[in-house]
């Protein structure tokens, strides 16, 4: 087997894992903007800067993952599969979820770049798609990941999911508390 094939195989795995980590951090910092979860680390402005900065990390890593798989002749993923999910013969569901995740993140990115042209409600609706994108990316990693037998890799993946879940639940609780307080204020 040629060296190129091995390099592509290694890159596909490492960029995929690192992209999931960067995406996790991006989601965590995004949620923390509303809940103050990372207030013990930095003020809200700092968290916002990091949230924006993380796109510099997860976009190239995600692109690297996709490009590596495009060149991987064992994955047999074509350009069409980046547009139409669930068309890959191998790992149809897992690959399809990866495609959906990538497409949703493109939508989120576009909505962020076009934020000035959108209403707050529209932008928020588009931005919330990142939760679905993360869930799809996580499922994609769990279903097609080849290194989950390793405890460290498995711990990393499940820690990412647990972290996002906990922070998201906290945000829901905070949002509910705010809503209840607003309702009481209206009544009194």
């Amino acid at each position, binding site marked *: 087997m040629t060296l190129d094939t*091995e390099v592509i195989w290694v890159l*596909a795995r490492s960029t995929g894992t690192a992209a999931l980590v960067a995406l996790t*951090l991006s989601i965590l910092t995004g949620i923390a903007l509303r809940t103050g979860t990372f207030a013990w680390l*930095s003020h809200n402005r*700092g968290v916002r800067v990091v949230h924006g900065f993380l796109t510099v990390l997860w976009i190239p890593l995600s692109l690297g993952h996709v490009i590596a798989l495009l060149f991987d002749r064992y994955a047999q993923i074509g350009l069409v599969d980046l547009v139409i999910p669930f068309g890959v013969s191998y790992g149809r569901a897992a690959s399809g979820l990866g495609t959906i995740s990538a497409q949703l993140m493109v939508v989120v990115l576009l909505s962020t770049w076009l934020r000035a042209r959108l209403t707050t409600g529209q932008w928020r609706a588009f931005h919330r798609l990142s939760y679905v994108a993360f869930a799809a990316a996580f499922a994609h990693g769990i279903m097609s990941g080849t290194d989950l037998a390793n405890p460290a890799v498995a711990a990393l993946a499940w820690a990412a999911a647990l972290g996002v879940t906990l922070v998201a639940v906290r945000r829901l609780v905070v949002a509910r508390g705010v809503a209840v307080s607003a309702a009481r204020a209206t009544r009194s």
Partner: protein
Amino acid sequence: MLRTLATAITLGSFGGMTVFANENLYTSNAPLQPAAVATPTPAPTTAPATVTTTRTTVRGSVTSTNTTALTRTKQS
């Protein structure tokens, strides 16, 4: 500080995973592993004791004969 931490975590996972993947190129549970490399061709369990080569020579022409040909028809 938070940006440095996020970069360190991401690039650390990238570097760590690259080293790990390089050391474990073809894990047994890797569904995308190249079959040709991952599963080496099994050696035959019993080797043949002797190898016999048989050569058959096909004659290129048909021998002629002067004998009258006999044609047997079905008796009704």
